[in-house]
């Protein structure tokens, strides 16, 4: 159970730090420092943080194109993550990956992903490895309402169910897939029915509420760890910014965006912490200043990191050594 005293401040701090990080990305894009596409998840922080607070370093996550929060919540270094987004040498992948391909092997981050829906199969595979090796880890697939329309979800739910794989299918329903409104893309808006149809217990949670996500994830992780199989969490959430830099957002109204801001996961948790006296008046402002300074430092680190050596473009294509035998 989410305990306001034990988890409240930690969760709020992590969400705020991720938000501060992601809010800088549009400006960095404008400055020409970010190429290709970057997809910020500002507004959706409670999902990644609520899930990850229940994970250990040995657990795996498979993310999607909107994956900075997932990665950072899993424990990735903010500076190295930003360096990767900027295509720098000190990025986790040496600049080969960029925003849509950030992998961190030692943290079980099996990559943000450019292929919508791919993380569903990847997390299923990580759970399969956990079961085969008996290493006790669990795996999480993060995907969106759009990703849920890839056929791989049906196959993965069934496979995970028949084999009782230790995997969480975390669906972030932010109501849009790029410009496509969810109402037009599914006839059955209750995504939990999909999990249930395959024998995967599924729960709908308020994805703008950290404690709610935390509790759902806690149950699902415990179930997976106990060998009882997969679960599905459907988090109702919203992205405040455009799908990516340059999004004209003609598919939604400003009023709608404003309305969702009133459910902001950071504000809500902060209010609760203040009302319960865990956060003293003025304390959060100081914390926020610290966070700003930490992200300043991450940004400074990323900007200062050199571009990669062009020759490195040719490395890492193949393994150079095979299994040596036993």
């Amino acid at each position: 159970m989410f305990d306001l005293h034990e988890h409240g401040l930690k969760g709020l701090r992590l969400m705020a730090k991720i938000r501060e990080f992601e809010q800088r990305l549009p400006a960095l894009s404008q400055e020409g420092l970010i190429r290709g596409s970057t997809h910020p998840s500002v507004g959706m922080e409670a999902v990644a943080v609520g899930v990850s607070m229940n994970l250990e370093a040995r657990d795996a996550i498979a993310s999607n194109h909107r994956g900075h929060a997932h990665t950072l919540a899993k424990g990735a270094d903010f500076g190295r993550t930003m360096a990767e987004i900027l295509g720098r040498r000190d990025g986790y992948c040496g600049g080969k990956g960029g925003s849509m391909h950030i992998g961190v092997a030692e943290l079980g981050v099996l990559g943000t992903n450019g292929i919508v829906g791919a993380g569903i199969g990847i997390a299923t595979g990580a759970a399969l490895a956990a079961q085969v090796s008996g290493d006790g880890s669990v795996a999480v697939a993060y995907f969106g309402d759009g990703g849920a329309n890839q056929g791989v979800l049906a196959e993965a739910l069934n496979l995970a169910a028949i084999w009782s794989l230790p995997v969480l299918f975390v669906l972030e329903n932010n109501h849009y897939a790029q410009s496509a409104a969810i109402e037009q893309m599914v006839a059955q808006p209750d995504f939990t029915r999909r999990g249930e149809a395959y024998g995967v217990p599924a729960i709908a949670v308020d994805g703008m509420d950290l404690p709610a996500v935390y509790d759902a994830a806690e149950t699902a992780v415990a179930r997976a760890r106990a060998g009882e199989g997969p679960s599905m969490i459907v988090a109702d959430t919203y992205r405040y910014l455009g799908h990516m830099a340059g999004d004209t957002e003609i598919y939604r109204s400003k009023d709608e965006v404003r309305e969702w801001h009133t459910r902001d996961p950071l504000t809500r948790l902060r209010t609760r912490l203040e009302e319960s006296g865990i956060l003293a008046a003025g304390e959060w402002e100081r914390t926020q200043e610290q966070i700003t300074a930490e992200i300043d430092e991450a940004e400074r680190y990323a900007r200062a990191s050199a571009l990669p050596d062009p020759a490195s473009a040719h490395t890492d294509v193949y393994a150079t050594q095979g299994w040596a035998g036993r």
Partner: protein
Amino acid sequence: MTEKTPKNLTTWRALNSALHDILADIPEAFVLGEDITTWGTGGGIYGVTRKLVDVYGPGRVRDTPISEEVLLAAVGAAAARGTRPILEIMYSDFSLLGFDGIINQAAKARYMFGGQFDVPLVIRTNGGSGIGKAAQHSQSLETIFAHVPGLEVAVPATPGDAYGLLVQAVRTDNPTIFLEHKNLYYDKGEVDFQPVAFGQARIARPGTDVTVVATQQVLHAALAAADQLAEEGIEAEIIDPRTLYPFDMETVIGSIRKTRHLIVGHEAVRDYGWGAEFVAQVAEEAWDLLDAAPRRIGGARTPIPYSEPLERTVTPGRDEMIAAVRAVRGATMAEAGTPA
């Protein structure tokens, strides 16, 4: 089709005009894809489907869920059942999710069933690198498609050809992979609004000393290289095949007869790329016409990296083209005793 006066348009505009004309002229044609009506200014990630829905309505211009597998399977059957679907796959990389529909089904339906079915399907998509879209949004997969019996493959490099090949693709009764290049959408050029037949190469620059066959970005790199080479006294004849299957071998052989030297360039990975197949065909059919071994330039054997200096390293450009031409011509000049 109504006669239109030629115009200077960007590639995306030319394609958009082609789609408007196709939907107006061919009642069986319809367009579908992800984000094709509500993105940007109302039409797809690069604008190609702009305003189509306003004119032709949501029955013939359909936004789809992110479900490439069923889409690529469904359009083949929809084509076999008498419609002419034009499916936009946002990036060619995503077509890999539906290879069964393309390769096992649509490409083979006519043959397996003894010629009973036409499959007049067009899959529009974009390939190529150059704008930092990284490994899963930048591949050049044309060789893979060109390898499959039953598929036709178009690779337009100019706005005019983009228009002409697209209207032609919808009229042909074969499944066509129509590969646009994401870094050429904003290039401008003359569009004459005429269909362009498949299997007819275009001589993009006439020359006498070396034949360069290249597509899309590499074609443009070759054209840029040609100016420099001309200053060095080498006149390159640059040929755009425009379609990889069917392929216009005749035009190329005619050119080699004159230049006696050959280079092929593409952005697809060089190893096992279509350039290798093409050079092999030339070797078989026209060995005696060549004064020097032909050369290929192409993508490095790596996925496309994100960071700019890396991406630049793995994709061939003007400098690689100049070096290749010098090498091929230099070999001959050295043999003839002329200082290279």
